[in-house]
């Protein structure tokens, strides 16, 4: 830090070199993991380890260059975290390709490239996040259309959440969550006073005026309704949580949370009672080992718990676990079980802490911003990541019923990777605004 004579000058550290170092460390971690898989499975480092590392490295450096050029004051952590999580995901998917049917790693690398490409586009083209506010309603409508589309496509594993076009398939629900966060942020930023303060009083509660509450409630109910029809419980839970969190942050009314939780409980009991699909999942959650005693063998949750337990404190090492026993969805919903088995409790907690770091940086950006829309959007996006990690990891760890969601960045799935890169891009963009020093007074 330098001090010039006379008035002390505020020197703003951009932290771009920190970001560069962290990005390179993240790439190196992934390359070492890739080599470890080869060593443990085949006894040699994979021949393409160099190319693989180069591909990831080039992508990461391009993203870093875009940040350096157009968002110099951005928070230095989100990008390296994205690279690390995406790299770890690629390594574990590559590892699972070796023992389960299918060859998903190359496709995942392509999707990652697309995701990073979109990250760069967002950082370069979106100069001010407040412009998103204008498209909030159109976005919400688009999101609803995206959500409805899978109804016209065949169900996959009991859920109608995929759109399949030839060899490509994607989950529109993933994109919808960003659009929904934008809509909530825009709507609540404008109407927060009305929601918090006006309306009729019923005893100690203040009911918000219908004309203010109705649009947001209708939109939200439409989303959740569609999702429930498609039996995409994970996303319904996520959208519900997002709505409650953002409503609370905007209005500071604890009553909303109470009402929200009550509605959620009613909905959960209703769905659990009506849908056999959900009912069996709740039973598996209450007694993961029950199917073994009943003579039906280990269900997927039991297999997942076996994998975690086998990993113990330190894990078996990448490639040395028995992930093939977990069955289908090992690369998507259950990828965390393989991480727990092969990297152990140590690796698993490290991974969860990386997510925690990303979430906390998002919240921090939200708090540091000045405009209510930006604040709510950053907090909403960070909450999406946090809630999604909780719903997925809680499901495979049998902490909550399994709902079937992808672990952000890590799980196999193109739409998921692309969406998460956009979320990180928005956080980087907004953190640049939040940390940019006010113009110096002459």
């Amino acid at each position, binding site marked *: 830090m330098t001090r010039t004579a006379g008035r002390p000058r505020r020197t703003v550290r951009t932290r771009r070199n920190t970001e560069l170092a962290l990005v390179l460390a993240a790439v190196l971690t992934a390359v070492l993991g890739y080599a470890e898989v080869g060593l443990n499975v085949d006894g040699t480092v994979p021949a393409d380890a160099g190319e693989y590392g180069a591909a990831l490295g080039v992508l990461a450096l391009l993203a870093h260059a875009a940040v350096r050029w157009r968002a110099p004051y951005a928070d230095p952590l989100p990008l390296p975290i994205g690279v690390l999580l995406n790299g770890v995901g690629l390594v574990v998917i590559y590892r699972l390709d070796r023992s389960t049917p299918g060859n998903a790693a190359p496709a995942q690398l392509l999707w990652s490239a697309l995701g990073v490409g979109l990250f760069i586009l967002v950082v370069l083209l979106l100069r001010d996040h407040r412009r998103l506010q204008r498209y909030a309603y159109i976005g919400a409508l688009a999101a609803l259309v995206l959500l409805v589309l899978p109804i016209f496509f065949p169900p996959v594993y009991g859920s109608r959440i995929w759109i399949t076009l030839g060899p490509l398939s994607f989950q529109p629900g993933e994109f919808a969550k960003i659009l929904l966060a934008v809509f909530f942020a825009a709507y609540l930023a404008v109407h927060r*006073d009305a929601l*918090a303060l006006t309306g009729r009083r019923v005893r100690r509660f203040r009911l918000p005026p219908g004309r203010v509450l109705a649009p947001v409630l209708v939109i939200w109910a439409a989303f959740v309704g569609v999702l429930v029809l498609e039996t995409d419980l994970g996303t319904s839970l996520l959208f519900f949580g997002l709505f409650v*969190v953002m409503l609370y942050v905007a209005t*500071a009314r604890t009553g909303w949370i109470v009402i929200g939780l009550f509605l959620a409980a009613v909905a959960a009991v209703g769905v659990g009672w009506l849908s056999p699909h959900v009912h069996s999942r709740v039973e598996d959650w209450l007694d993961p080992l029950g199917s073994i005693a009943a003579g039906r063998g280990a269900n997927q949750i039991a297999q997942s718990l076996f994998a*975690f337990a086998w990993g113990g404190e330190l894990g078996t090492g990448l490639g040395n676990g028995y992930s093939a026993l977990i069955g289908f969805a090992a690369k998507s919903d259950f990828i965390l079980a393989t991480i727990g088995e092969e990297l152990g409790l140590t690796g*698993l907690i490290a991974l*969860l802490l990386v997510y925690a770091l990303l979430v906390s940086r998002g919240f921090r950006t939200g*708090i540091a911003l*000045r405009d209510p829309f930006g604040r709510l959007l950053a907090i909403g996006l960070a909450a999406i990541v946090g809630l999604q990690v909780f719903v997925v990891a809680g499901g495979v760890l049998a902490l909550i019923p399994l709902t079937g969601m992808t672990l952000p960045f890590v799980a196999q799935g193109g739409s998921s990777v692309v969406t998460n890169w956009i979320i990180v891009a928005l956080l980087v963009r907004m953190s640049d605004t939040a940390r940019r020093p006010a113009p110096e007074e002459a």
Partner: protein
Amino acid sequence: MARGRSGDRSGGGRGDGPQGLPGISVTGRRAGTFCLLLIVALCVQATRVQVFRAEELNHNSANQRLTVERYSQPRGDILVGAEPVTGSVPTGGRYDYKRTYTDGPTYAAVTGYSSQAYGNTQLEGTEDELLSGTDTRLASWAVWDAVARRRNPGGDVHTTVDRAAQQAAMRGLGRQKGAVAAIEPATGRILALASTPSYDPGSFAGASADDREAWNRLQADAGQPMLNRALRQTYPPGSTFKVVTAAAALEGGVVTDVDAPTDTPFPYVLPGTTTPLVNDTRACDEPGQSLATAMVLSCNSVLGHLGVQVGLERMTAMAEAFGFNDAGLDTPVRAARSNFDTRMDEAQLALSSIGQFDTAATPLVMAMVAAGVANDGTVMRPQLVEKLTRSDGTAVQLMEPSVYRRAMSPATAGQVRRLMTDVVEKGTGRNARIAGAVVGGKTGTAQNGPDNSGTPYAWFISWAAPADSDGVPPVAVAVVIADSDATDVTGGGLAAPVARAVMQAVLAR
């Protein structure tokens, strides 16, 4: 309030929300804390699963990991003499290696089985960690190996079993249902452990349909071939238990001279009842028979009467010194608990003293009775394993002989040995005589089934020493024949020849 709208200018703080409510800085922080708490909850649950429930989950029957791991490399071997009686062959399936057994049925009671589908038992089970290579004692750098999860080649289990004695036992039992336990009295080393009908543990070592069929057939077999009768089954010991009673009578001073008349009346009416204790032979049917005569003729009335005179406490103590009432008798394979009731009236005690009522013994414990007498009254702990080695032959653990109990004084033991020699020389045990050897024994024939409808159990316990030696006899044996085609079922007729064959095999070394 002036600041109705959110604080466009202020960075945060309480009161920048709608009309004095907490602003986004405060609520956002709370929501962030909530999200982080969710992740903390995940960490707690992960720790619960991966640390505190790991053991239970790893051993769940539906979890294949332990089995896959166990058969991922060749298993160490179980050796009899210097030769392995087990092996491992590569398979093409999910499990890399499969257990094989050479002469499986002969050694099944020693080895137990190691099956990919049905788990491990007996030595294959108790020494599993060594055999499968996970025993930390195999590692040269235990801590590092544990961290790296490096597996060592499986170690070998060297048994104390004598090949010739084991083969003699199996041949002697033949097609009859029964068991043999032979012990080296001075050390407690188990020389033979045989159970018939037997089975081939190799027939279901894999996980194929054939293995499953073989297993199901064995499970359904009425002859219970997989039951280890030498260790895991108890039978009423009948008159062989009189050795224990005689030892207790001599040790307790109830009898001081084995040839002197006792004060046993005839008929001897069970105390508190009107039922006389009947003898199998009329030669016993006179009052005042000496202990020596009573043993040679196997008189129930005399030994029953002596047991009552010794008293419950001292009878129990003597029985327990030989291994009765011990539920943790590990060789390391655990033997079933042999029973001598500790609460009885005098009539029940009289019956128990001749091996009836609730008295029940494994062949192993009856072999310990013979061995204790042979070893000057000191009962050694029975051991099936001589040493554990790494795959390169270096020792991991050597078994030292250890004293189980001192049952009686050497003088008493000498007197009991004389009684047992008389049984073989001129009593019911003549079928066990061996030229050029001193043999002591005791026959037993125990009723079986409701109203004695089943075939009686034929027992024989004995020890033998070369005639010119005055050291501890090198072998003690217990034989039980539970079911035979023979018409005349007596211990002397059926069981003594088997014991004789086993003792001859050891003496011929």
